């Protein structure tokens, strides 16, 4: 789409529609595979849609275009949301989504940069994506290009010490070309983050590492879009956006329920889920 021809309201409306499609694809592919992680994919869906259908400077016909913005899904298990965005942007045919997690598929259980067009770097082992982002951002600075690196991190994986090693190194090198987005859905595999391993206040932790940090509603498309545009202007500091989200967002019976971290819907659940997503007009309930 041509962004310049549209005003802000139109862009937001467009993204809301796209986010529904992204969510439908997520449910569809996990249902087809009968395996995958719907909860964390749905919580990141609005942010990912804003990135892939508005913010990112990318060329699906040339996935390795040197000047492109880079994207890293540190919470790699949420890859159905990434694959969905990539297919919808034309990196590969939509029908490939049906092959998720299947033998010899280009869509591995966790993202693989050698198999999937548009996957800038392999991820899946938690707590490592921010380090990868630091390396990519250092490369961007070295070659003096103004592309930007976005990393989506789960609020569970920040338990990993390596996240904080990466946080320190990003501020050492003043990586203002790096934006981390914490998908704060308050759930990790074994339960609520506050119970498994409390990490709040996350924003203050990043601020203490000399990052610019802010908190937004990760399902409010206006707020997401405004924030992603604003943070590009911040100089000499990496940026962390704490996005408050709901795990399973968009499918009522999945929302805030631990077991939907890594479980596929059955036929009946699938039908309800698709209907709910398609009928849902509001970005916030």
């Amino acid at each position, binding site marked *: 789409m041509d962004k310049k021809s549209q005003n802000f309201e139109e862009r937001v409306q467009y993204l809301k529609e796209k986010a529904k499609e992204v969510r439908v694809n997520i449910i569809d592919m996990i249902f087809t595979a009968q395996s995958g992680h719907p909860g964390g994919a749905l919580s990141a869906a609005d942010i990912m849609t804003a990135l892939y259908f508005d913010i990112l400077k990318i060329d699906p016909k040339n996935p390795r275009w040197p000047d492109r913005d880079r994207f890293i899904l540190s919470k790699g298990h949420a890859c159905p949301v990434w694959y969905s965005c990539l297919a919808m942007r034309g990196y590969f045919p939509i029908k490939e989504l049906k092959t998720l997690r299947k033998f010899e598929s280009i869509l591995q259980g966790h993202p693989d940069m050698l198999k999937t067009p548009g996957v800038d770097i392999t991820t899946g082992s938690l707590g490592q994506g921010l380090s990868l982002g630091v*390396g990519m951002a250092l490369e961007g600075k070295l070659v003096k290009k103004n592309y930007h690196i976005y990393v989506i991190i789960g609020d569970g994986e920040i338990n990993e010490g*390596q996240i904080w*090693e990466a946080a320190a190194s990003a501020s050492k090198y003043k990586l203002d070309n790096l934006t981390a987005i914490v998908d704060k859905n308050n759930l990790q595999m074994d339960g609520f983050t506050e119970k498994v391993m409390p990490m709040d206040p996350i924003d203050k932790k990043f601020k203490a590492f000399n990052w610019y940090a802010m908190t937004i509603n990760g399902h409010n498309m206006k707020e997401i879009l405004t924030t992603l545009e604003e943070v590009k202007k911040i100089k000499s500091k990496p940026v962390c956006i704490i996005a408050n989200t709901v795990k399973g967002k968009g499918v009522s019976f999945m929302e805030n329920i631990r077991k939907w971290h890594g479980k596929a819907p059955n036929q009946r659940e699938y039908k309800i889920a698709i209907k709910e997503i398609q009928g849902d007009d509001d970005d916030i309930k």
Partner: protein
Amino acid sequence: MILSKADIATRQAFSERMLEYGAINKDFVVFEADIGYSTYSYLFGEAYPKRYFNMGIAESNTMAAAAGMAADGRTVIACSYGVFITMRAIEAIRTFVCYPNLNVKFLSSHGGVTPAIDGVTHQATEDIGIMTTLPNMKVLAPADTESAKKIFDVAIKTPGPVFVRLMRDPFFDIYSKKDTFKLEGSKTIRKGKDITVVTYGDTIFQALEAADELEKENISSEIIDMYSIKPFDKRNLLNSISKTEALLVVEDHQKRNGLGYELSNFCLKNKPVIFDNLGLNDTFAESGNYYKIIDKYGISKKHILNKAKELISKKRK
């Protein structure tokens, strides 16, 4: 064989070549994890500060960031000690360097028990086993100044991940400017007919001394420096053991999962010969004088001598 004492350790020689190469090739960068004055990567850092990234005492982040930087083809040299590279940061290396087959080369100092006085925490005696297990990883281990410098060139020109095992202390210089090194190469440093001794790194010098002693007893041993551990030089090995019919592998590493295990497997499948291997026998070493440690833990001249004689006597039965 009279050996000439080396002035510098392989870690220093490798880094000195890295500095030289930095002037020729502007395309590679170096990551360090706060032991630059020990790995000698500081030499590169002082000359090329914009291409040198000191990530602090944080090896996992260092190796994963190296992968991030290498993601679009950049060659990165990541430096630390063997224990930290191969254990602290192993998953970053396995999943983000080896799996996508990125151009990260590991300068791994303090191989084997060469950091003898530092003790077990700093002695990398499992590094070869861990690194050779990783798909796409190549493993090299130079023994002296000349080979360390030339193996830098081999490492940087070899696509994908390469692990280079270096030593803390200087031992002896055995190669000259004329010697060449390559991936999947080896060097027959002493010709012989009764037994083949395959080794790499610091144990080469023990093997050479043992060979002198064996010669006094009319036993002629062939010594191969298997500096390219993965992939190793099958042709040279096969030629040698076809002649000697006996193989002894000696390494400053655990016996388990080192080059000895690799070659025993190879021989069993291709050319069964009388075989044994020396290394740390499922044990950690300790702090102290290097020569006392290698003697106590079974990889010194004395052990090589005895084991070689034992294998030869088995062969004659």
